[in-house]
Every structure is written in C-alpha cells, then in structure tokens.
C-alpha cells in the first residue's frame, strides 16, 4: 500500500564538532522505537538523522554508528551558526524533499511526501527550532517529552473525527510530565478526519527532554546511507548576523564539588532560617548548593542577600538545570518530582531529609532521614563536626 508518510526523523544538535548528549539519546530512542515498530507492523521504516552545519561529514558518519539508518546532511558556511530562520527553512526543505526521501527507500520513492514522526531536543535551540519548523510544516508539536509509545488508537472525538469511531494507526503517544512532576499528559497529533475540516497533520513531532533516554553504544560496523542535501538559501533568510559568542563561567559550580546539598519547598515554614541551616550544612561538607525549580521562581519573601544568591536558575538541579553525579547528594525538603530526579539520580550516595515517608524522593535515596529539616540538620551538623573534617582537596 502506498504510504505518504514514513520514517522517524531526528534533528541533531552539535557544538564545536561534538554532538550534544541529547542528540545521541534521541537517536538511541528512535532506534528502539522503530525496531519494535518494524517488528510489530512487519515494516521497514527508518531512523533518519538530519544534521545542518559546516564541515559535518564526519559527524554524519558517526550518526550511523550510533543507530541511524540514514543521515541527511546540509553543509554550508551559512549554516555554521544555528540561526532560527535559515535552519527552519532548510529543515523544512529536507523533510519535504521527495528526492532524498526516495533515496532512503527507493521502492517508496513515488509515494512518500513527508516523515511520519520527528524529534527535536527540548533545549535552548531545539525548543524554538521545533516550534518554527512545525508552523512551516503546519503540523503538531508536543514539548518536553520523556516517554514514547507507538500504537493503533481507536477513538471517537467530537472535533477530530466528527464523533464517529476511527482508527488512527501507528500513532505516536507522547508523554509529557506536567508542572507538578506527578501527572503525565499523553499528547497525540492526529489528522482531522472530521468531514467539516479534513486535514493531514504529519509529521507527528515532539521535543525530547535531555538526559532521559539512553544512547546506544557506538558500533563502527553499523551501516547506513549518507545523503548530502544541497539547500536553497535565500538571502532574505540570512538577516541575523552573529556578532560574537562568549562562553560564560557560572558562579555556581556543579562539576568540581563532590557534594551537593539541595533544598526545595520544604524550607517553607521558615525560609530565611532554613536556608541558613542549609548553608551551614553545605559549609561543613564543602558542598555546592542546589535548588528545585520552584525555588528559582522566588516564591518567598526573604532577605535580598539570600534571595539573589540561592533562588536563581543557575542552581536548579534537574531537566531544566544541571545534571550531577556528585559523590554525595543531600536533598532537604525536596519531594522528588521526576524532572528533579533526572538531574541527581546518577549521584553516588543520596540522603533525603523529609517528614513525608511517601515522598517519591525516598526511592532515590540510600538513606532517608524521616523528619523536619529544622530538627534534623542541626543534629547532622553537630555529628559531621565530630566525624568528618574535610580538607580542601589539592
């Protein structure tokens, strides 16, 4: 049967000749999904990586080794910096280029119009690029996804189907954790089959949270097609000039310290005093201080000094902030929402301080100290003073 939509396209991000970790994570998850898709549907649809830039041939080869069946790359000096307008246009050209779509799978060359699915990274670049690209393609986009399932879905929907029962085959179920971190919303991108306003929506697309999926091991024996795409570059799309780029050193350092003490909304009963307690604990452990995302939104009236030092985005641990593999991670007054856990689960030894034994953070802890931080931390500090004396590591 002729199919207009096939394959899963993954938009790759890279910096200074290296992949961002999320790129390989997306390729890995795409591989797993399409392997089970092809088994389930006795099909042979591909994982296609899309990479734009200047001098990206070498990276293109590596993408095959990390699990892609095919790579479409556009190599042009104008694509050296990621600029939203030209990137959106070129990605739009690539995914609608029937020639390269045909090269990937010659037997479908005459039928295929667009990818079936498409992945972007949910980061500073991919979040915006996915948004503009999906307007260009006039299709749907879900953001911040951390679980994906492909299934046939039978449903009747007032708008989508006009109330009659329809089967949407091979539908990508995109799971998105909500702002509390405890609810999962499944988002679908579905064609309108309602006779009143029929319309196809492909590719079904999403942005994927960095750090969630596992990349595959690099395998130099893996083979695939590498296709060069020559973009059409309209000078109108090159209006943005990049004048300079400056790497910033954060005042917060989560790389060197071996211990991190984090706090969350559990400080609420006396934020000022509790932050001071945390500070003292961190001092004894020579630790850097981390926070949960809500802290960075400045929810409490506290002294300016503490506010500007701690309630800031640079300290957030989790999918919206830093990922750490500290030797010791102390989470005080943190519930353990999954976006937070993604940032700290690779730590060595984890201690939780929380009065609520049902808090999900417990599942991530080696030791869960049941109690209020107001009571527990002073005892901890006293004991650490007796037992541990940390000398600056030379």
């Amino acid at each position, binding site marked *: 049967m002729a199919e207009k939509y096939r394959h899963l396209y993954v938009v790759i991000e890279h910096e200074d000749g290296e992949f961002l970790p999320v790129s390989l994570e997306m390729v890995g998850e795409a591989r797993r999904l399409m392997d089970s898709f092809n088994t389930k549907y006795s099909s042979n649809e591909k994982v296609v990586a899309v990479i734009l830039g200047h001098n990206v041939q070498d990276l293109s080869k590596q993408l095959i080794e990390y699990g892609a069946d095919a790579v479409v790359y556009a190599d042009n000096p104008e694509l050296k910096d990621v600029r939203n307008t030209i990137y959106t246009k070129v990605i739009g050209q690539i995914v609608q280029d029937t020639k390269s779509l045909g090269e990937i799978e010659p037997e479908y060359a005459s039928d295929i119009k667009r990818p079936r699915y498409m992945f972007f990274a949910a980061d500073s670049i991919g979040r915006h690029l996915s948004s503009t690209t999906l*307007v260009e393609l006039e299709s*749907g986009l879900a953001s911040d996804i951390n679980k994906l399932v492909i299934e046939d879905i039978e449903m009747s929907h007032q708008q989508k189907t006009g109330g009659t029962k329809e089967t949407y085959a091979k539908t990508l179920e995109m799971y998105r954790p*909500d702002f509390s971190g405890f609810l999962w919303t499944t988002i679908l991108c579905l064609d309108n089959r309602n006779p009143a306003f029929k319309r196809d929506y492909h590719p079904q697309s999403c942005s994927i949270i960095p750090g969630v999926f596992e990349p595959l091991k690099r395998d130099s024996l893996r083979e695939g097609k590498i296709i060069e795409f020559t973009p059409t570059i309209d000078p109108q799309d090159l209006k943005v000039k*990049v004048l*300079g780029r400056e790497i910033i050193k954060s005042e917060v350092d989560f790389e060197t310290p071996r211990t991190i003490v984090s706090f969350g909304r559990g400080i609420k009963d006396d934020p000022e005093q509790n932050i001071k307690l945390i500070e003292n604990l961190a001092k004894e452990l020579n630790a850097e201080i981390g926070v949960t995302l809500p802290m960075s939104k400045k929810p409490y009236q506290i002294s300016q000094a503490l506010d500007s030092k701690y309630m800031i985005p640079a300290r957030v641990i989790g999918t919206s902030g830093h990922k750490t593999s500290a030797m010791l991670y102390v989470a005080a007054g943190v519930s353990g929402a999954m976006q937070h856990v993604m940032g700290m689960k690779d730590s060595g030894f984890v201690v939780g301080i929380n009065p609520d034994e049902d808090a999900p953070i417990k599942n991530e802890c080696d*030791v869960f100290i049941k*109690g209020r931080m107001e009571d527990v931390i002073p005892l901890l500090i006293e004991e650490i003073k*007796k037992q541990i004396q940390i000398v600056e590591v030379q």
Partner: protein
Amino acid sequence: MGGLNIAVIIKLEPDFSEGNVSYNPDGTLNRAETKNTLGPHSAIAAHAAFFGRVMYDAEISIGTMGPPIADLALQQAQQISDAEELCLYSDRLFAGADTLGTAEVLRVGIEKMQEKMDIVFSGHRASDGETGQTGPQTAWKLGFTFLGNVISYSVDLETRMVRAKRLISLQGFPSVIEEVEAPLPVFISIDPTYKSNYNTVSQRLAFQKYQKEATQRAENYKDYFKIFNAKELGVDETLVGLPGSPTIVYKVERVPKSTATRSAEVIDGSDPEQIRKVVSKMKEALAAMVIK
C-alpha cells in the same frame, strides 16, 4: 527616523507564589482554589517592552488570548509597561487550542493592532505547564525574524537594527552568550534572566516619568481596553481553537510511582544515635576525599 512600535503577548496564569497557590492532597494543582495573575514570564516581557518605552519612546500594545477575566493580566502588564493599547482576544471558538491554534489568533491580533509592529515580545514560557512554543510559532506566522532567550537588547532607530544578547544553555556544554544583530521587525522571546539597565540620569528620569504615567493609565485601564471575538478579528475558524489544533490531550494519568532505584534505609531524624550512623555512611561515601 520613525518611532518604535512594540507589542507584547502575555498570559493569565495560576499564581504560584506562596499563599496563593493551592495543591490537592495528591500534590497536583488545585485550579479552583488557586488565584490567577499575570504570568511571571509575561511580566518580564512587559518589563522588556517598558525598556523600549523609556529608551526609545516606543508605543506599547499588549495582546492576550484568554477568558474575559484575563483583562486582569492586561491591566497588570500595563502597570509595568505603560501600554496604551490593551487587546483581549476572547471567544469560545478559541477554547481548547494547542500552540498552533493559539499562535494563529495572536498573529491576527498583532496584525490588527493600531500600529504596524517593529518588535513583538513574548515571555519565555508560561508557568502552568506551557511549552514555550507559542512565541516562536507566532513569530513564524508573522514572518518576523525570531530571537529567543534574549537577556538584553538595544535598538538603533537610525538604521532600524536591533542588537541582542541571547543566553544559550545546552545540557553537557557550558552556557554561551551570543550577540546578534538583525533588522526590524523582530520577534523576541525574553529569557527569565533578562534585566533592563537604566544607566544615565536622563534615563532614570524618563523611567520615573513613564512609570507614573503607567500607574495612571492602569487605574483607568478600561479606557485603553478592547475586546475582540473571532468574528471581529476575522480569523479563519478552521485555523483556531480545536479545529486548528493538530494535537489533543489524549489522557492524563498519575506518573506511576517509580520503582525504587535504591532501597532507602529509613531513619528516625530525631534520634542522635541514628544520625551518627548516617554521618559515618556519608563519610564512607566521601572516602576519596581527604578525611581526618
């Protein structure tokens, strides 16, 4: 040398600040009990617009799609930005829209504003589980150059160019500040760390003057307020609301309790003897460090 026209798109959101937010026993947001307010990222976008008012004498317009009570957000944003045009796009037909359907309403709304816009600002994202997609999608529909994660900007009215600094944070790489230049019109989504700097005395005087004006205007915000339904806007009804939304929410479920990745030893935090044991374990974990 022409004047500068700035639009801001904003959103009414649940107020997550302490005392206003209410959670259900299961930890989810209690929407009925939680108050609404101008979203914090929208407020930052309004501050960025006010910077244009102070520095370049810009005229500010604000647009929002939402229920009739969203006039509150418009008033709050006017208080920040000294806007002279407040537009609410409100119609049952817009309900249930995803970001594509929302961006279409905002595009039409912005094109209907009394002036042709040079800069449109949006916040980074909404706090109530929104996606950060609406800004860039509106930009693309408008055909404006999109600049995301902007932490500061300036405009050269002579050459009609914008200069902006953008904060790019990528997991696994150090953050980068990128400086870019682009001709007007541009669409700017403002980074949460955006700051307006008023350095000279005359800038600070202008700041005070416009702030006072903003307060007066916001007291009489109804004089600046317009409300548009789908028909008045002239939107294509198949491109907005549910018909114009490719995506649907299929189901909402509780995230299953993660199976414990570690088996936590539970310790009574009031027992000094047990705390002593915890600390000796912490000490073991840090064994690679120099310990006396």
